[in-house]
Structures are given as C-alpha cells and as structure tokens.
C-alpha cells in the first residue's frame, strides 16, 4: 500500500485523465456556465458576456404563455404514468421470467422483450406509422374497417395520443427495465422459499409474501430516481413518434420538445433558454431531494 502510494506517478495519471477531463469541461461544464443566457438579452454581435442583462424577463414571458402550463403538465403527467405503469409491468414480467429462468426458451423470450429498447425512435416512429397512417395504417385499414367503423385521422386527433404514447413507451422500455428486477429476485435468499415450501405455501403465496416484499427496496430506489428525472422527457418519443404534428402539440408538447421548437423553429433564444434553465434547476433539486429520501430509507443505495 505504502509502496503503491509512493510509486503512483501523479503526472502520468493526470496525463491519462486529461482528454476525458477536457471533454467533460467542454461538453458538460461550459454549458452550465452558459445558462446565464437565460438571464440575458443575447445579442451575438456583442457576444454573450457583453449582452445586456434581462433579469427574470425571459422567465416572466415564458410563464405568461399557455405553452408553459401545457408543457409542464404534460411532462409531469406522462412521467407519473410511465413510472407507475412501467414499474408494475417490469415487475410483472420479472416475476414471471424468474419462474422460467432456467429454461432454454427464456433467452429467446428475453431477447424479444429487450429488442424494442435497442432501436431508435426514428424506427419506432416508422412502426407507429405502419399502425396509425390514415390511409395505409393497420388500425384504420384492417381493425376499424373490419369492425365497420369510420377510420380515424390519428396524426391530427390529440385525444388519442396520451394512450398511444403510453403504449409506445411501455412497449419500448418494460422488458428492459425488468432485467433489474430479475437480478434482484435472483439474488434473494433461497432459504426463505425453501421454508415457505415446507409450510406448504404455493407459488402465488410465495410471490406475495416473499418476492414482492423483498423487492420493495429495489422498487423504492428505482422509483425515487425516476422521480428525480420527472422534469425530463424522451425527446424522440414526444417529437418523432407523433411526427412533429402541430395538431397534437396539446398532448405531445413536453419541456424538451418546447426547448427544441423554441430554439430551432422559432429562433427564440430567450424562451428556449428560460425553459431549459427551469428544467435543469428543478430537475437538480428533485435529484437532490430524491437522493435525500433514498438515503433515509436505505443509506447503502443512495447515490451520495
């Protein structure tokens, strides 16, 4: 130990760390400082630092718009549904998978369940389109026609999108998130199950009295960290899958899609940076809060 300490070359180690540190500085830390633009009237002719201060004007403008309410509401509500439904589905899959874990076909099943998580949102949007296209989609042309119902213009009726987006999200993520719960179940003390079997407890009883209660810490931590990210959304899911359709904004606009649209489509630096800073700061506060709660429940699982 002392030998290792003495021999550790500070210089060469710093050299090794340098490229990664430089990248972190540029990719992560400079943009943190760049958050000042939300408090400025940016004039690129003068440069960001010399642009006049705007105080909280950008935020005032932002929160006076109806957009602010819609995007915050959507971001929060979708995340709540994703957390609840996603967790339930993932645990359900994990419990069932554990029953067949040693069978050869369980690998195939797992492959099928993980696959949706590995494709890009662009491809997901193609798949959604194959189902939802007004004149070629499977839903209109096969299902609704078969039932003798009128076809639906899916990409312009926002009332269906809360359901569509939840289905897409669960389809894409449930199998993948179940892996963590499967690992937790596999790591449980087998003696408890032995004892339960001796006492004549059936599988269902074992699941409800042993497996699920023992999963509680894992679930708690996963949920808390998800709550820490409750102000963020998957840009691809809300932008690409609805095909950026303006008619759907009421149901599909989240903070992330708003920031993109305000920046790239409207060129409104003030509004987009204000929304982004709002998201960063509230998100950070939530991460800290969630971690504080995790530490109180189970100190070993806290991030810091």
């Amino acid at each position, binding site marked *: 130990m002392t*030998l*290792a300490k*003495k*021999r*550790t*070359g*500070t210089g*060469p*180690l710093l050299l*090794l760390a340098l*490229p*990664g540190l430089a*990248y*972190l500085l540029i*990719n*992560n830390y400079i*943009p*943190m400082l*760049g*958050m000042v*633009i*939300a408090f400025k009237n940016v004039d*690129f002719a003068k440069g960001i630092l010399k642009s006049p201060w705007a105080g909280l004007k950008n935020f005032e403008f932002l929160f006076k718009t109806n957009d602010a309410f819609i995007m915050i509401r959507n971001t929060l509500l979708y995340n709540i549904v994703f957390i609840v439904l996603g967790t339930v589905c993932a645990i359900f*899959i994990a419990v*069932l998978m554990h029953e*067949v874990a040693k069978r050869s076909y369980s690998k195939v099943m*797992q*492959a099928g*369940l993980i*696959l949706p998580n*590995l*494709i*890009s949102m*662009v*491809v997901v949007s193609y*798949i959604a*389109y*194959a189902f939802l*296209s007004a004149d*070629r989609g499977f839903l209109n*042309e*096969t299902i609704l026609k078969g039932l003798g119902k009128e076809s639906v213009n899916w990409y312009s009726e926002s009332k269906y999108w809360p359901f569509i987006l939840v289905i897409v999200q669960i389809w894409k993520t449930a199998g993948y998130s179940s*892996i*963590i719960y499967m*690992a937790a179940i596999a790591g449980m003390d087998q003696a408890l199950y032995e004892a339960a*079997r001796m006492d004549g407890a*059936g*599988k269902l009883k074992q699941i409800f009295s042993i497996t699920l209660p023992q999963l509680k810490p894992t679930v708690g931590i996963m949920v808390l960290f998800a709550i820490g990210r409750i102000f963020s959304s998957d840009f*691809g899911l809300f932008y*690409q899958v609805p095909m950026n359709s303006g008619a759907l904004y009421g149901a599909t606009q989240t903070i992330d899609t708003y920031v*993109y649209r305000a920046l*790239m489509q409207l060129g409104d630096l003030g509004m*987009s*940076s204000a929304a*982004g*800073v709002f*998201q*960063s700061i509230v998100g950070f506060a939530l991460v800290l809060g969630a971690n504080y709660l995790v530490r109180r429940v189970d100190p070993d699982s806290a*991030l*810091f």
Partner: protein
Amino acid sequence: MMSAADGDKAFKVFAILVLSVITIGAFVPFLLIVVASFTEESAIVEHGYRFVTDRLSLDAYAFMLSQFGVISRAYAVSIGVTVVGTALSLLITTMLAYPMSRPGFKYRNVIAFLVFFSLLFSGGVVPSYIMWTRVFHLRDSYLALVIPTYLMSGFNALLVRNYYKNSVPSALIESAQIDGASELRIFFRIMIPLSTPVNVTIGLFTGIAYWNDWINALYYISKPQMFGIQNLLMRMMTNLQFLTSGQAAGMVGAGAVDLPTNAVRMSMAVIGILPILIGFPFLQKYLTKGVVVGAVKG
C-alpha cells in the same frame, strides 16, 4: 383441492403462457414492418400495411438497390460515426477511469466528483447548441455527429473505475510497479487487457447510442448528403408525406407514381435496424449484464 405441487405446475404454465403473449406483443410490431417491406405496393394501397399478404414482392428492395448510392452513403456515415465514436469513447473513458481507480492518486476524488456532478446537473440544450455552433463551429461537420453528448458518459467512466477497483487484483499492479513498469504501461498492458467484459459492455452501449442517434444531426447537420441512416429515414418520412399531401402533385412526374413508396418506407426501416437484429443474439449476454452492473451502483 389442488396440492401445492399441482399449483406450482399450474403457475408455471400460466407464466409460460403469459410471457409468450407478452413476447409476441413485443415482437409483433417488427413483423408488421418486415412483412410490409416484402409486400407488393398494390396490396398496400388496397389493404394498408398487414401482417400477412398473398402478394409478396421484392420491389421495395429492388428500388433501394437502384438508390444504392444514397443509401450506401448514409450507411457509411452511420458505420463511420459508430466505429470512430465508440473507439474514441472507449479510449478516453477508460483513460479517465484508471486514474480514478488508483488509491494513491492525489486528484482521484476531485476528478470523481467532477464526473459524478456532470451526471446530476446539466446546462441543457440551448447553451450546448450555442457553444458547439458558435464557438466550435461544428455545424455541417462530421465531428458534430461524433463529439456532442455521446463521446463520453460519466456513468460509463464510473462503471469502469469500479471494475478496475473491484475486479483487477491490486497485487498485479503492485508487482508490475516493482518490476519498474510506468503508469501508462500498467494501464495499456494490464488494465485494458484484463477488463474485456466491462469494455465490451460500455462499448456496446456507446455503439448502440451512436447507431441510433439522430438528434445531433437534427441540430447540427443541414446537408442531406451528410446524414446517417437514421436521419435519412427521418427525411424520407417527411418527404413522402410531402409527396402524398397533394401540395406537390404538380411536381410528381409520371414515373413517381410507380414508385413502391409505401413498401420502400418500411424496407428502409428494416435496413435501419438490420445491424442490431444481426448483432443482437451475440450481444444479449453483455447487454443484460451491463444493465445489472450499472444498476447496482454508479
């Protein structure tokens, strides 16, 4: 009454049945685009996209072959970005992880904090966009597809550090030092070769992220000839919409009507996921392992 053993058996059957249904549910959407890509255009126009068809056709793929230049170019961009990005990422991530893993290194905690904090807090999209375009002038440069966001994940750096700390015997490092090996030598000759599992895992996650990325090009690339396969797919979706929306009716030549547009769309999507479908069976093991390792502690 059923005995416990019968009940267990019944539950197992139930589990198999339900899981089969769920697995099919997860897989069936892929089937729709694959079948549609092999369906004759006239059948799609008549009945829409379907899971079964009696009119199989290779027209869509023949058409794509006729567009070989455009598609192969996009493919080359995607492959190039994925390979270069993943290799660079592996290099700088492991290089950063090693000093953090060395118990005697003075700055290891400072560096670990910088890495860790970058995971908790982010300046957001707007300042990054302004920096990459106005300071580094990455607009319409291939570097814009490699550098922003994906080049190094602090999460991966911590994952590798933990692997170095817990899975590489420290006695190995000490004996190498006694033999006079330098830190650089230890890193390149001992640490990297001994940590293949974690390298494969983070390489895989990074590679998939690069292959699937379309957001960097959305922000930074305006020239279609620089698009990778994902952004080509995106553009095809909007362009075909443009063609079918009627606004462009006057511009559509007689030849365009014969294009198997509906089938082509789906064959493009199939081409976009082909590498993942092919590689997946070999990589599944590492993917599931990676999730578990990552979940245990960052």
